[in-house]
Every structure is written in C-alpha cells, then in structure tokens.
C-alpha cells in the first residue's frame, strides 16, 4: 500500500466520520449529539468527493448536513430537550444490544466478502454530472418518476397526519 495524498485524506476523513459517530453515542446533551451527527455526515461527503462522486458529495452536504441536521436541531429545540440520558435501568439490556449489533456486523461482513466486487466496474475517473443527468432522466426515467411520486405521497401524508392532531 503506497501512502499518497488520497490515502491520507481518506484516513483523516474516516477518522472524522467514525469519531463523529462515537461522539454521537457518548455525548450527554441532545443538541451536541445532533451536531456530532452533522459532522459525521459532512465527513462522509468528503469521502464521496475522494471517490470522484462530486455531485453525490455536494448533495450529501446540501440534504444531510444542511437540511436533515437542521431539521433535527429544530425538532430538539422545540420539544423537551433538557432530558439527559440516565444509566440503563435493565442490566441485561447492554448485553442484548451488543449481541444484536454484533450479529448485524457479522451479517454485513459476510455479505461484503461474498459480494462480487471484483467484476469489471465502469470508469469513474472521467465521470461527469451531465452523464448522471442523462442516466437518470433518460435511461431510468420511470423509476425516477415512481420514487418522486412516492415521496410526494409521503409528504402529503405527513402533512395530513400532523394537521389532524392539532385540530380540537
């Protein structure tokens, strides 16, 4: 393995992403957790950039770091936020969680090692956003429209559910 700029950048960004996730689990205040999550999401955008996925990286920043994090912060600030996490009441809870997470990790690692990743992949070095646009809006236009209709339905459904509660 040769050590070049890309490797160092990947290393630093991975540490940032994992560090943000660890902070998310360990911080006490909910607002700090949300900010740690935003940091993790931003670091992941950096990793996308390293993989030549400029568009995906920028959209990750726009949607996740800029949008979802702020939505969460808003939600935290407008609801009960003074709660701090106490110690777990059930002692076997930690053990069960560890078993669950451990088996999930095992399944994921098993899937990754069995996935046919060594097949020939498309050339990514000269990838451009224009190609992405053509692929989405010409080749995959019907799945794209189906997903957008699904999202629209979810949006309208959320509005209807939220309105019902507020009415006397």
């Amino acid at each position, binding site marked *: 393995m040769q050590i070049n700029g890309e490797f160092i950048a990947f290393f630093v960004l991975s540490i940032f992403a994992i560090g943000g996730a660890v902070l998310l689990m360990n911080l006490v205040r909910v607002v700090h957790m949300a900010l740690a999550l935003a940091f993790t999401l931003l670091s992941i955008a950096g990793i996308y950039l390293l993989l030549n996925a400029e568009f995906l990286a920028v959209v990750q920043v726009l949607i996740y770091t800029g*949008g979802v994090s702020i939505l969460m*912060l808003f939600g935290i600030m407008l609801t009960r936020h003074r709660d701090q996490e106490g110690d777990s009441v059930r002692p076997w809870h930690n053990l069960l969680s560890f078993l669950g997470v451990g088996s999930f990790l095992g399944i994921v690692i098993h899937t990754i090692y069995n996935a046919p990743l060594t097949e020939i992949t498309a050339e990514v070095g000269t990838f451009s956003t224009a190609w992405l646009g053509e692929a989405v809006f010409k080749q995959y236009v019907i799945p794209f429209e189906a997903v957008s209709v699904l999202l629209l339905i979810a949006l309208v459904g959320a509005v209807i559910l939220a309105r019902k509660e507020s009415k006397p």
Partner: protein
Amino acid sequence: MSMGILMGPVGLLFIVLGFVTFAILFERKVIGWMQARIGPNRVGPWGMLQTVADILKLLIKEDTIPSKADHPLFKWAPVIAFVPSFAVLAVIPFTDQWVFADLGVGLLYYIAVSSITTIGMLAGGWASNNKYALLGALRSVAQMISYEIPLIMSVVGVILSAQTLNLTKIVEAQEDLWFIVPQFLGFIVFFIASLAELNRTPFDLPEAESELVAGYHVEYSGFRFAFFMLAEYVYVFAMASLTTVLFLGGWKPVFGLDLVPPILWFSLKFLLVVFSLFWIRATLPRIRMDQLMQLGWKLLLPLALLNIFLSAVLKEVFPGVY
C-alpha cells in the same frame, strides 16, 4: 506551485478582509447620504479608518461567556458560521485565470456549503441560553431554509441555458448576452432570495435590533462577535460575486471594451451589486415575520417554478436565442 496553492487563498483572505473593512464604511456613508447625514468622518481622512478603529475596539474587548451558556458550543458556533462563508469563495471565478477550484458542480457546491452556516447561527443562538438569541436563531434558520428553495429554483433557468453547473462555463455561455436579459424573472427571484439569505434589510428579522436586541449574537462580544459579523460580510462578498457570475456576465466586458482588464470588469459589476444591496437597505423598511413566509412560499417559489417552465419551453421553441 505549492507556494502558489498556499498563497492564493491567503491573498484572497486579505482581499476579502479589506473588502469587508471598506464595505462597512461605504455602507455607512451611503446610508448616511441617503438619509441626508454625513456618515463617519472623524477617524482618519474622510472617515477612512472608522472601521479599523471599530475592529480594534472589538478585538481588545473582554470576551464574555454567560455562566449558564453551553460553553463548548458557544465557542465553536462562530467558527462553524465563518468557515463555510470563506470556503464558498473557492469556486467563484473572478476571471478566467483566477479561480481556485474549477469544480464541475461549482454552483451546487456554493449553495450546499453556504447552508452549513445556518448550523453555526442556530448553535450560537442556542448556546447563548438567552430567549432573544434563541428567537433570533429560530427566525434566522426558518428564513434561510425558506429562501434557499426559491434561490436554488431561480438558478435552474440559468443552468438550463448554460447546460452546465460549472461557474466558469456559465460565464462563458454569456459571451453574447448576459443571463439577466433572457432570465430576467429568474434574476428578480434570485436577487430577492439572496437578500433574504444575507439577512439584510428588508429581511433582517433575525437581527432586528429594535425588537430582538440583536438576534442570535446578542450574548457575543469581542472577537467572537466579530467573527459572526465577518461571516455576514463575507457572504455579501460571495453572494455579490455569485450574482455577477450568474447574471451579469462575470468578467466579460461591456460593449466589447477589451482594453479594460477582465478583473476590473468583474469588480465594477460586483460593486454595482454591492451598492444596490446598501441602497435597498437605506430605502426599504423591515417586513413582518408572516409577510416574510408568505413572500417566500406563495410568491417567490411559484415565480421560480414558472421561470423553470418558461425557460424549458422557450429553449425548445427558440433554441438559438435561449
């Protein structure tokens, strides 16, 4: 080469700091003249050193942190707010030679990175543990999110015409005709939305000093406060540059006057945009919160969508012109 990579951004930082210093003076002078006052005229010749004195005062002020504040967040918030404001300048093409990162998705990069500042404002208002600061922060975020959508939608027309997201290529597509002419509706929506994104009058509700004291940065003093103000004025620089690049033809000369260097053309157009920001601040009153939301969602967003539709139709009907 490596020196150039390092020195370029540092040079840009000093240019931006110089711009901010004189933009504040210019703003106070312009608003003074429009209100039949003289404006600052005591420190230095023609008041030139007024902002320098103000900054010096800010830097030697005591750095106060409220005892009930969320200390780490309070310290980090100005940094989170400032860093994106400078990072967006990386993709702005000042001339065809002078651009730091010629990203393929430059326009989206600008919009995405600038949205991170909102987190800094929200964190600052939250960490202050002050109701005015929190109200200001919530208002600010609501406003930024509402106006980001018309802002993005209004540039889609430009993207359709230029067929690229790269800012350099967008300028090159304006060789014959600036986008302000075919995309006039888009320009109007973009300009109003950018005023709101910059938190400037008539959209300065987040820091309405007469009702909210000063909004999200009420508890800040000294250099932390200076950082928030700096972030705002760097955004003025960035947004005026972006307006120039998207709609006013960037460094392209007017009437084919090639003798004037491109950077001067860019500066002239850029200063025109900055002046109109100050002009609007001096002439328009602040709008109310409910009016703000109505304007954003019920007027600007439909207009921006109409602009996308019109651009797409006109591009198909008159492929040469648009």
